[in-house]
């Protein structure tokens, strides 16, 4: 028996597995991906970390979980600690920060566990802070407050979730529809392709921003409407790419071989052609994410995006523009956006590199 230098690997790693290994080697993209995924998952359970409702309250032997159910101030017989006129009975929603102070002062068995950063995104803090808004950054409010006395960090964090969710949903659906339409156009060709392409061309020349502005002046778009509108106008671009790829792939012999064994059209398109056509397009995904985050921010900035008081980056940036002397209002949202987009671009760069079949080389 001769000894072998290398072991034979009888089960080859799959295509995507190899790509993933290559992607992992690109440190910038890999760590950006990990950080971003971590941040996004944190943002899905954000009220645990940042928010004005307490995690847990014990009051007179009863237990409350304000994360899941709102309680009114009467429930705890809470007193107002308003800096302007204190010691009246608090009406409406309970304020857990005051409740904690109250319990601590009284020293009874009652206690409150607040979230890590106990300020909500839409909560007006004017009752407990001195001076006029916007307040500069302090230990309590890391990025200060905005011009209505709301905590900036909290708004940024909630805005992050909204921006990323929005762009992920829009990207997913635009790519899905783009794939389907592009594949059908490319595969069937002929008159169907001609008419389809003309329709798409007409559709793509519609001025999207103006239409969005017009629509949002008629109906105040919420999250659902805004995603729907952007999907409606966004699938066109990807259709072109997929159509071209399918055109190229369908001329290859394996397509003919698949037809020759009696596979149906849909099977040929979606099983044989699609995975081949997808590869060049996959590297677009991160950049599309960037694009949709930016477009949501710009719509919000112009005031045609999500309705107030939704925490959104665009709205914060527009505040910053109106109050340039308050540096935290300018730098915080811009910085947050910058770092998020930078990370996604790093991921995009990594993905592109990982899907590049040839390593970079040059002739001497």
């Amino acid at each position, binding site marked *: 028996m001769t000894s072998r230098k290398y072991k034979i690997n009888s089960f080859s790693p799959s295509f995507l597995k190899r790509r993933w290994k290559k992607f992992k080697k690109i440190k910038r993209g890999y760590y950006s991906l990990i950080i971003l995924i971590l941040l996004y998952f944190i943002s899905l359970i954000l009220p645990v970390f940042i928010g004005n409702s307490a995690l847990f309250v014990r009051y007179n032997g009863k237990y409350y979980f304000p994360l899941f159910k709102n309680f009114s101030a009467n429930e705890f017989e809470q007193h107002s600690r308003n800096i302007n006129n204190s010691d009246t009975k608090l009406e409406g929603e309970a304020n857990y920060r005051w409740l904690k102070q109250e319990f601590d002062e009284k020293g009874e068995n009652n206690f409150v566990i607040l979230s890590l950063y106990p300020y909500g995104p839409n909560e007006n803090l004017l009752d407990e802070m001195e001076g006029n808004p916007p307040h500069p950054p302090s230990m309590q409010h890391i990025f200060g407050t905005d011009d209505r006395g709301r905590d900036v960090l909290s708004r940024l964090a909630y805005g992050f979730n909204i921006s990323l969710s929005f762009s992920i949903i829009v990207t997913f659906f635009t790519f899905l529809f783009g794939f389907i339409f592009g594949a059908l156009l490319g595969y069937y060709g002929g008159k169907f392709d001609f008419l389809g392409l003309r329709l798409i061309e007409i559709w793509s020349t519609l001025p999207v921003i103006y239409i969005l502005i017009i629509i949002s002046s008629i109906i105040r778009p919420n999250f659902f409407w805004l995603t729907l509108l952007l999907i409606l106008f966004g699938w066109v671009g990807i259709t072109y790419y997929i159509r071209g790829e399918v055109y190229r792939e369908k001329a*290859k012999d394996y397509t003919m071989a698949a037809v*020759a*064994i009696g596979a149906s059209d849909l099977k040929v398109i979606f099983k044989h052609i699609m995975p081949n056509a997808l590869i060049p397009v996959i590297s677009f995904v991160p950049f599309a994410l960037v694009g949709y985050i930016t477009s949501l921010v710009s719509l919000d900035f112009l005031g045609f995006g999500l309705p107030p008081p939704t925490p959104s980056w665009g709205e914060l940036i527009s505040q910053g523009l109106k109050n340039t002397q308050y540096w935290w209002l300018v730098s915080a949202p811009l910085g947050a956006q910058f770092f998020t987009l930078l990370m996604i671009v790093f991921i995009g760069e990594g993905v592109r590199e990982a899907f590049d079949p040839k390593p970079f080389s040059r002739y001497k």
Partner: protein
Amino acid sequence: MNKLLEIDNLKVYFFVDPLYTGFTKSNNNEFKSKDIIEDRWIKGKIPVKAVDNVSFDIFNGEILGIAGESGSGKSVTAHSIINLIPSPPGKILSGEILYKGKDILKLSKNELKNIRGKEIGMIFQEPSVSLNPVLKIKSQIFESLMLDKKLNKKDIKKKALTLLADVGITNPESSLNSYPHQLSGGMKQRIMIAIALSRNPSLLIADEPTTSLDVTTQKQIIDLLVNIKKSRTDFSILLITHNLGLIKQICDRVIIMYGGKIQEIGEMKKLFENPLHPYTEGLVGCFPDPNSISTERINGIPGNIPDAIDYPSGCKFHPRCKYAMCLCKNIEPELFLIEKTHFVRCHLYKVNNITDE
């Protein structure tokens, strides 16, 4: 012997834009009059007569070879048997392809699906591009097996493994899990054969199955085809090749094609012993006898194959033919019956003409 497939007057033209051909439209005149121009895309295009009135039969249990130079219409003939002509630019203008009595050209798309793969399997020229590069071998073989809808998953895997073992793949289990680029050309061609055989077709069309392989692998693949043929009853192979040696080894009958037409049909032995058509003679002459010790030069056929857009008048072979007569330049010969099962398209044999084919 029963006829498995009857091809009758098959005519396949490709219509190309005159811009890319170097010809002007005036060549198109003959086309306007009699042939149907129902498709708008044909308008203003020049016809390339890839296959022109080809008729032949394939019998049950034979290996039929089609030989000819590149561009003589062999592959197009083979592809049109399962209606695999890309249109545009190709169009099957007329003809009948009767498979077990059914005309394949008149079948609907769904009926065609049941013929492709199930009744007629096909192997392609280049195995490296005929397998989908991003799918594992497993899913490509399973796909074909799953089209039958009778087998459950376990049976499918079992059947795939036996298929791969049948085509001589030494470790079927690990081949199933690999991607096409990890296999050699011969292995890929074996897998293509396995896929083609997976639904037990009664006819296998092998479109130059050995062209892109090296000689030792060619031998293995050909031996494999012969073994497969032997191990099955009522199984026919249509072998398309430009390699006469290959035809000499395994075929029962041979068709020699030139310029989109059949020039000679005959049984393999007779055709090689006594080639009648000057073109066949030239081809056979180019094929050295490995047993002889003669030191004579091999004289090739002078000239090139004519452009399929602009064939010479009369016999298409006459500019290259050493026996060319005046008659050849003007009149295209018919297929003359020489003796039983031997036909030739040449004026030299007109004397013997007993029946018009």
